[in-house]
């Protein structure tokens, strides 16, 4: 199960930042994320069979936006 914090940790790791530096509304591109790394994260998070759409992720690059998508998909998958 993915959590908001585990997402934050994964993002931090891939852009070599401290998780504490990543706020919910921060623009991840400004923090150094690019599409390839975003893709990488998607892949990792899709590992448990979660259906995640790159287009959706691409629209808004914030932790909060991404968590919203992942949370919704996890609930759908469970329910």
């Amino acid at each position, binding site marked *: 199960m993915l959590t908001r914090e585990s997402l934050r940790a994964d993002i931090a790791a891939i852009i070599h930042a401290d998780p504490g530096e990543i706020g919910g509304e921060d623009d991840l*591109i400004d923090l*150094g994320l690019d*599409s*390839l790394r975003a*893709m990488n994260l998607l892949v990792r998070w899709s590992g448990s069979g979660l259906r995640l759409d*790159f287009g*959706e992720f691409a629209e808004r690059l914030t932790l909060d936006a991404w968590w919203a998508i992942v949370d919704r998909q996890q609930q759908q998958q469970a329910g």
Partner: protein
Amino acid sequence: MSGQLAMPPLHAPQPLTEAQSGLWYAQALDPANPIFNTGHYLDLRGPLDAGAFRAAVNGMVAEADALALRIEAGRHGPLQSVEEARRPWLEVVDLAGEADPEAAALVAMTRDMETPVDPARQRLAREVLFRLGPRRHIWYQRAHHLALDAFATDLTLRRVAELYAARCGQGQPGRTLPSFSLALAEDAAYRGGTRRAADAAFWRDAFADGPESVGMVPGTAVSARRAHRCAVALPESVGKALARLGPPWPDVLAALAGAYARRHTGGEEAVVGVALMGRLGSPAARVPCTLMNVVPVRLQPDEQLPLAEMLRATTQPLAEARRHGRYRGEQLRRDLGRVAAGRRLFGPLVNLLPFGGLPAFRGLDVTQHVLGTGPVDDITFTFRATPSGAGLRLEVEANPDLYSGAAARAHALRLAQFIAAALEAPCLAAVPTATPAEADWLLHGLNATSHPVPDTTIWALIAARMRETPHATALAFGEAAMTYAELEARSAALAGVLRAQGAGPGRIVAVALERSFALMVGLVAVLRTGAAYLPLDPGHPPERIARILADARPVVLLAKAALAGGTPVLPPAGWPRQGAAPAGGPADDRADGPADGPPDGPSPDDTAYVLYTSGSTGAPKGVVVAHRAILNRLEWMRRHYGFTPADRILQKTPITFDVSVWELFLPLIAGATLVLAPPGAHRDPVALAAILRRQRITTAHFVPSMLAAFLAEPATRGLRLARVFCSGEALTPELRDRFHATCTAELHNLYGPTEAAVDVSFWPAAADDASRPVPIGFPVWNTQLYVLDEALRPVPPGVTGHLFIGGVQLAREYLGRPDLTARAFLQSPFRPGERIYRTGDHAQVREDGAILFLGRSDQQVKIRGLRIELGEIEAALAGSRMVRQARVIAREDRAGDRRLVAYVVPGDGFDATALRAHVAARVPDYMVPAAFVALAALPVNSSGKLDRAALPAPGHAASHSRPAETEAERRMASLFAEMLGLERVGAEDDFFALGGHSLLAVELMLRVREAWGWDPGLGALFEHPTAARLAALMEDRGEADHGLGPLVRLCQGDAALPPLFLVHPAGGISWCYGRLARALAPRRAVHGLQAPALQEGATLPDSLEALAADYVDRILAVAPHDTVHLGGWSVGGIIAQAMAVRLRALGRRVGVVAMLDSYPTDVWRAEAEPDAHAPLRALLAIGGFDPDRLPEPVPLEPQAVADFLRRSDSPLGRLPPQVLSGVARVVRGNNRLVRAHRHARYGGEILHFRAALDHAGRGLHPDLWKPYAAAVKVADIPALHAAMTGAAAVARIAPVLSAHLLARDTEGQE
């Protein structure tokens, strides 16, 4: 986000996004090109719920607005709107009844893909479901690239899958695809925002000091109408290795693709184009539309580092590029000024698609087949995989104008192998470029030249001939002849004396004799003792000779007189004529005679000759060649070319040059006749031609420089021989062609260094050989040729490498120089126990295996980081009739300023400016020489090769006229010199003849303005192109002349010849004729007539006749001659015809009436009214651009056009704005006059230059003039209408026009 953006309504016309703009202009420039259609199909096997499927597709179509776009040209640029009638609802086509339903579907799809789409008149997209059977369907999607890019196509695909699943009761339909207006809004926001400026600045900085980008093959990167496509799957191991590395696999592949490209271009960096989806962080990320952008990335992968470390450095430029990747690549290209054809922003395009993996369609087995992905300018490497990297595929698309299908496939295999190897290797440097299969072919397949050769010596074969045909003529010299028997006797006698002096196997005898019987007797005598001969040129500097003799320590010297160095000399006068009886000598003396069984003497491994070559640096080195080596070469030649005793071979090459070896000995081993040319004759073409004829020579050799000079002599015309061999220098295609046009003989190109027994490769340069360049060809017997990289690995075809030679012909060593020997002769990595020789030459293997010689390193220069083969420029020069011979070198006369200088032996009608234009029409502008120096002859050294040191620096040769006298002249001349990069400019030298062009002209005039304090206008330089005249003008302050006056002089020339008056085309300005005016030979005065309406306040005449009459008045005021010539392009031709009629009516003589693709007014009356664009198009045309083929999209409105002209450095860009209104005035006025005009019949001939590439299907033909002229003569020019005053067309028009002008100068017409 989207709440903050203004969402434009889609059913009203909207401007295009930046991404769409480039595509729209590209399609508009080439409406018949279907390459912009993207398409694919899914093969669906299994039970398809057709109703659900149709609903799903149509559901997607309802959301994807871009599929329904209509895009057409508006007043200020293209506009788009969504047209409901164009929505591509699913079409269902039942092919189940066809004999082969799948084939039928493929035919239909292919036909659809190959049909070009007009975005104004036709719908951009189609969705078709082909039913092949109850359990097989093909779903075809096609969309113009203006509507969708690859990611968007994937979006639509996924959406359909989602909707289908929902319809079948499997899950929720998910979010709708957002409206296209969101994409428009986002695009407008970026264009108006601050980020764009920041991005622009980033890119400018990143490329400020960048080298020119080059592709892997030469040529212009503009998409053709189709593309080669092929694909390979990368092995599983690659996917696994990529997963193990830190950086994401697309970064890794981009870096490796960059390294691969660099292996082929040979530069220090590779600039690859990286395709970006353009969607990250964009509110429009899920809009089906085209957002894809290609940005250039400079990569300098360090091949010595382990992969992981290397990638750390390459990841950074990739990341930065992505961060600023919203900025359009097309805009960047404009910013950097790389818009001219032939210049590019990047080499190969790398496309990384991590969204492969088809969505599932329930119950169906689905495979996808790509049909087209859009334009392919050069070569694209697409890597497709699922985001995790599984199932990696490489797809290669290549422009068929640049790559053959085989070459494209080879790249696919080679890149795949390169990547797989790179991921396993300790570092990139360990990875070869060629695949193992290619390497095997290159090393062994091409070099399977094994052939039996007798295990013997030259002397033994000669002795055999002496026995077989003692009375045959061995030698001829002038009128005298010598038989084999006499040669035997005299050489035997001399050999006895030589042996007494110590000559024998392992010893050397020096020979310094002129061509004569004595020379041959001497050489044969030396060989029969078993010693080696060392040829010397007594004309060489004494210290050089002394050094050689000290080095080689020959036992004796055969020469007329002693030379420096103290070797005992045996002059021919003292040689015995017949053998003395041996005084109890060794048995071998008797056995030496041919009557006594096998002769003694050398064995195959003994040295045959030692030849000293001058190194490019340092002391001469003695190359030691054994009998075995040279015998291979001679026997191959004898058998390969079929030499017989009937042959008569000319010996003319000095014996110090190794070509002489086969001239001297091939005849003797073939039992043929050796004809010795008199001393010095080899330099005199007339004498040579006489000898070739008188002596009935069958075979001769020429170094190409000498062959060119030889062919230039009229005495050589019609010469017939059996064979001519060329070696020693590159044989150009032009020389080959000129040879076959002049003589009748086989022509053979041979190549080889002295270190490999004369020649190692051959190529039949036959009359029907069209190779460019002429290859050095294939290896001779028992010889291998290798083109290797720095690590001694074979390079693939098309890549430049170092040429190495292997095989039996290699010299043993450099005499007494084990150090040089070890450096040049290496252990063969390919054939154990053997050696290879490093030639120091660059070469390439052609696709068919023939080797191309690319010159020594000094034939290859770098200017601004661009690699230039001087041979290419030389070839361009050689193709002009103005050039008899030409060489190009790079000179650095001023430190840090490297320039190309062409040295030309002039031919017919030589003119430096015209020649410059000729070259500029054939090579990229960075390869056009900065100076053209005419010489009476190209200086050659004693071997007949070009003597570079003797070539004069351009400054001195260029200027012919008197030095500046007055202060003003001195100032002006020094400005000229500075602009032209010359040391000195004479007061009467023409600026344009010295190499000035329009860009320099503008710069010059700026400086002139500064220096004198007033602006005479650009036109002043055209009128007064010499320092003296311009200085005089500046001093005598007059009216500013912007070059818009009614009569402008385009060119001065021979005042005795009748002048040519050229009438302006549509815009009223005649500057476009400058090039043509200067290209005429002989030069004559050429004037341009310009529309009076250009000046404000002028009134337009009422009719075309009145205009013509006005023009006639103007020309009569300046034309004292009886005869005048007229001409004009487009509407200028129409006016010229009317002027001709008027002149005749006045009783004046009209010579030539030339038209550049003009057609009578009848044609124009039928046409629609021109729109507001016409004057701007006319202005672009005057500026030298084809308005239909601009290098970048230019909105047709005055400011944009003016900006474009200014950016393109067109002199028009600097004109004041009233010019634009003047042109508009003229265009409207002329249009009115033309429509109202009815031609009268002109009683003379019209010379019509037809733009043969244009007007397809429009019924425009020069015959339309027949009712209005006594005769119409047509010359087809392979050009478009708009290019008729451009360099390429002028190069063809000028000679024809010049000839007609000359013919009509005195005749006039009756």
